[in-house]
């Protein structure tokens, strides 16, 4: 049994719950960051090292900061979801009952390096790569176009 995998899965699940239950929207966005970094740790345990680094860089470096800026800009003090505390007991019981289902399938030992990813990305998936670049350009232009302050 992989102990680190288990711990970070539980952290990811509970912070995903608290994303929706935090009353303050800013704290909810920070809990989203906890989910993203736990998923990065799980990637690293699954031997996808480059993907883990990319997850920390892109998600918690770029996307989370963008979401935090938006939250600061338009924060309203509203209530989170309100569910009675007693309902947390069957939810945790459900999690406990899921534990025997844990199947520790043997994960391979081969690790894909950045070289493998780059070779594959620029040979078989070159068209997809170009289309992804076009998509990013379109998203950038489109978001500037949408959020622009138009003169009346």
């Amino acid at each position, binding site marked *: 049994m992989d102990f680190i995998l288990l711990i970070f899965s539980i952290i990811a699940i509970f912070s995903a719950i608290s*994303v929706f239950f935090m009353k303050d929207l800013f704290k909810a966005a920070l809990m989203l960051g906890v989910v993203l970094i736990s998923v990065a740790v799980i990637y690293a345990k699954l031997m996808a090292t480059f993907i883990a680094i990319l997850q920390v860089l892109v998600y918690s470096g770029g996307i989370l900061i963008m979401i935090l800026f938006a939250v600061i800009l338009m924060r309203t003090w*509203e209530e989170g979801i309100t569910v009675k505390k007693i309902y947390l007991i069957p939810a945790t019981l459900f999690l406990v009952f899921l534990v025997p289902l844990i199947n520790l399938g043997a994960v391979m030992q081969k690790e894909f390096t950045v070289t493998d990813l780059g070779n594959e990305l620029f040979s078989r998936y070159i068209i997809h790569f170009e289309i992804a670049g076009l998509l990013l350009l379109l998203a950038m232009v489109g978001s500037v176009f949408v959020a622009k302050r138009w003169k009346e």
Partner: protein
Amino acid sequence: MITIVSIILITIALIGIATTRNLLRILMGAEIILNAANMNFAYNSAKLSNIDGDIFILFTLIVTAAEVALGLAIILLIYKNFNTVDIKEIGRERRY
């Protein structure tokens, strides 16, 4: 095990999206769903020793970045027009 965690995360995010009323929280739920799906890709890529899953995670990352940029721009526009991000109030006082 990773599959189970992924299923639980997707369920939590779906319930959250269905019950919350804040547009920003809905965007965060979409992030969680995409991350859970990516976890599944990474696990199967490691189990089958096949690199296609890792490549697919890269493309999902790109699409997610584009989605968040456009989504936040649209939410900003909604906030400027309606002065709220609550979907109930937006539906109530729709001007267009």
